[in-house]
């Protein structure tokens, strides 16, 4: 073990430290803040890539904070799936941060810009910590940092609708956090431990089955709200469509995924395979809710008139995909779910940033206003089309690979109905995506709606968009680099 075992903790804490130092910089030189904020995230990304290849797909890196071995101290446990997610978090947050610099000058007033970047860094650090932790109370702490920063970032523009959407989000998010805390309390009372690996052992021996079952139910409700699982999704469309676009990209592309990942950790690392009788019923209910989410999100997305609203409903549908992968309880399903977290993150972040480009250049939010958009903004439109193809799941994009494994997993788990639902979901996605693409490329817009010459967003906004959309293509073509290891890691988790 070399010095690299310290990398995960540095990846988590350096963005937090950066966030803490920014207010003073903002006091001295506000114009430097957007540039300096890139440094800690870039540092984390570099460390993340250096870790690549050092963590085996059937093992994990266990780091004992303060040198106290678990269960007495807190453990950071990075397995292959966790590292995969941490890299996705680093990459997408970094691109969204690059995008923010210009965009923010339009939507956020001057006294709030420093706070925006502070919260942005806190959110990224918290997501990394959330994905890496091996202690269940620590999970709660990072979840709270994540929740607080996301509530505030939704409201940061300060206009009427944003504040109301944020308040709605708080009113659903805060009780769900408390439910998670209560669930941790139940778990602790029945086992006396807070470490995930230790919990898994003690749950198998524990006699308090009722307490454990209800604890799992509370976890599902709590994280279900955070991940916007179907009947608990009410906060999502408003919050995601009203937030500034880079924040929508993070909320939609990462935050809901990370919450789903937390439930994955609870389901597979805390409640081990032997405890299937404890959580089986609840997991079945989650499967039903997820299938409903796929259909509901797809249909609602078709009905929307506002572009960001449509993308937000599409997110609800895709969260359903991820949960269907989890509840299949097969290695293929799990692989599909984790891969879908990545490609949905890339594609959704790209779509929201494209929507941001339209708002930045023209101030257009409604889908109808996009008719003929390609004449003025070809780069944005092509990136949007590429990301849409990944959302639908057409080869050779990453969306195809993940949907393939999701369906395969559900077929292996003999859940034929869910496999059909996944296919129908793709058809719905095709309907709502192609409508926008059709408007953009094949319809003439209103007179004077678009200029005839190329006048796209500035390069600092186009580069992130294109890197994200090419990312979906890259992970579609070169999926063989990742998928075998992911399959192995998933089999190790099960």
């Amino acid at each position, binding site marked *: 073990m070399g010095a690299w075992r310290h990398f995960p903790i540095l990846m988590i804490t350096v963005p937090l430290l950066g966030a803490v130092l920014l207010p003073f910089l903002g006091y001295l030189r506000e114009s430097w803040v957007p540039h300096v904020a890139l440094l800690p995230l870039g540092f984390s990304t570099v460390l993340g890539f250096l870790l690549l290849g050092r963590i085996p797909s059937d093992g994990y890196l266990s780091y004992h904070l303060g040198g106290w071995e678990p269960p007495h101290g807190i453990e950071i446990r990075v397995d292959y799936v966790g590292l995969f997610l941490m890299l996705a978090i680093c990459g997408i947050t970094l691109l969204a941060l690059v995008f923010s610099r210009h965009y923010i000058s339009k939507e956020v007033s001057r006294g709030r810009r420093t706070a925006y970047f502070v919260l942005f860094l806190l959110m990224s650090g918290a997501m990394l910590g959330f994905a890496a932790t091996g202690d269940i*109370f620590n999970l709660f*702490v990072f979840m*709270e940092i994540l*929740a*607080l920063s996301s*509530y*505030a970032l939704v*409201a940061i523009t*300060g206009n*009427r*609708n944003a*504040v*109301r959407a*944020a*308040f709605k989000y*708080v*009113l659903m998010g*805060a*009780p769900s*956090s*408390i439910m998670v*805390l*209560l669930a941790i*309390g139940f778990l*602790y*009372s029945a086992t006396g431990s*807070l470490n995930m690996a230790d919990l898994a052992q003690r749950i198998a021996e524990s006699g308090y089955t009722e307490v454990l079952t209800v604890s799992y139910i509370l976890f599902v409700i709590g994280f279900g709200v955070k991940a916007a699982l179907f009947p608990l999704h009410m906060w999502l469309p408003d919050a995601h469509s009203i937030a500034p676009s880079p924040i929508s990209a993070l909320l939609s592309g990462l935050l809901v995924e990370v919450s789903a990942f937390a439930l994955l950790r609870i389901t597979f690392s805390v409640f081990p395979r032997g405890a299937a009788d404890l959580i089986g019923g609840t997991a079945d209910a989650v499967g039903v809710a997820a299938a409903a989410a796929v259909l509901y999100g797809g249909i609602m997305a078709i009905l929307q008139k506002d572009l960001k609203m449509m993308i937000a409903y599409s997110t609800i549908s895709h969260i359903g995909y991820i949960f269907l992968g989890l509840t299949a309880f097969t290695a293929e399903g799990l692989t599909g779910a984790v891969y879908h977290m990545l490609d949905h993150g890339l594609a959704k972040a790209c779509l929201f940033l494209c929507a941001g480009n339209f708002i930045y250049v023209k101030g257009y939010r409604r889908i109808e206003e996009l008719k003929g958009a390609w004449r003025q903004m070809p780069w944005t439109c092509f990136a949007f089309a590429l990301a849409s193809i990944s959302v639908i799941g057409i080869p050779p994009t990453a969306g195809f690979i993940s949907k393939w494994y999701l369906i395969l997993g559900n077929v292996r788990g003999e859940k034929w109905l869910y496999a059909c639902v996944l296919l129908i979901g793709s058809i719905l996605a095709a309907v709502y995506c192609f409508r926008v693409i059709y408007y953009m490329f094949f319809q003439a817009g209103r007179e004077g709606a678009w200029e005839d010459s190329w006048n796209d967003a500035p390069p600092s906004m186009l580069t992130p968009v294109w890197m994200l959309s090419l990312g979906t293509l890259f992970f579609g073509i070169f999926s063989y680099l990742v998928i075998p290891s992911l399959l192995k890691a998933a089999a190790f988790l099960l």
Partner: protein
Amino acid sequence: MRLLHNYHYVAAMVLFCIGLYTVIVRRNIVKKLIGLNIMETSVFFFFISLGYLDGGMAPIRVGKADPSRMVNPLPQALILTGIVVAVSVTALALSLVILLYRQYGTLDVDRLMREEEQSETAEREERG
């Protein structure tokens, strides 16, 4: 019988449900926040009760204190974190309330939502 013995837990759960009721049903947003705080406090109470020991003493090692008779210190340490989290959420929610009241002039949830519909129809008329 176990229910009677665990009366602390029962009280915590009843408080939890009262808090949730307040959050969901009350129309005044400040009262909703109070309900949120009741929920949080009930969970803190639940955790502290988990650490209770019959005839226990404070976990401070002074003199010849007997470690086996001390109450469980871990829930207390966790709840310190929990309290800070609750304070933070309340601070954020209150600042949102300040802004909401300034922009809408009301603290009533139903009226806030009605304003939403009105502003939407106004927008539509503006565009159409």
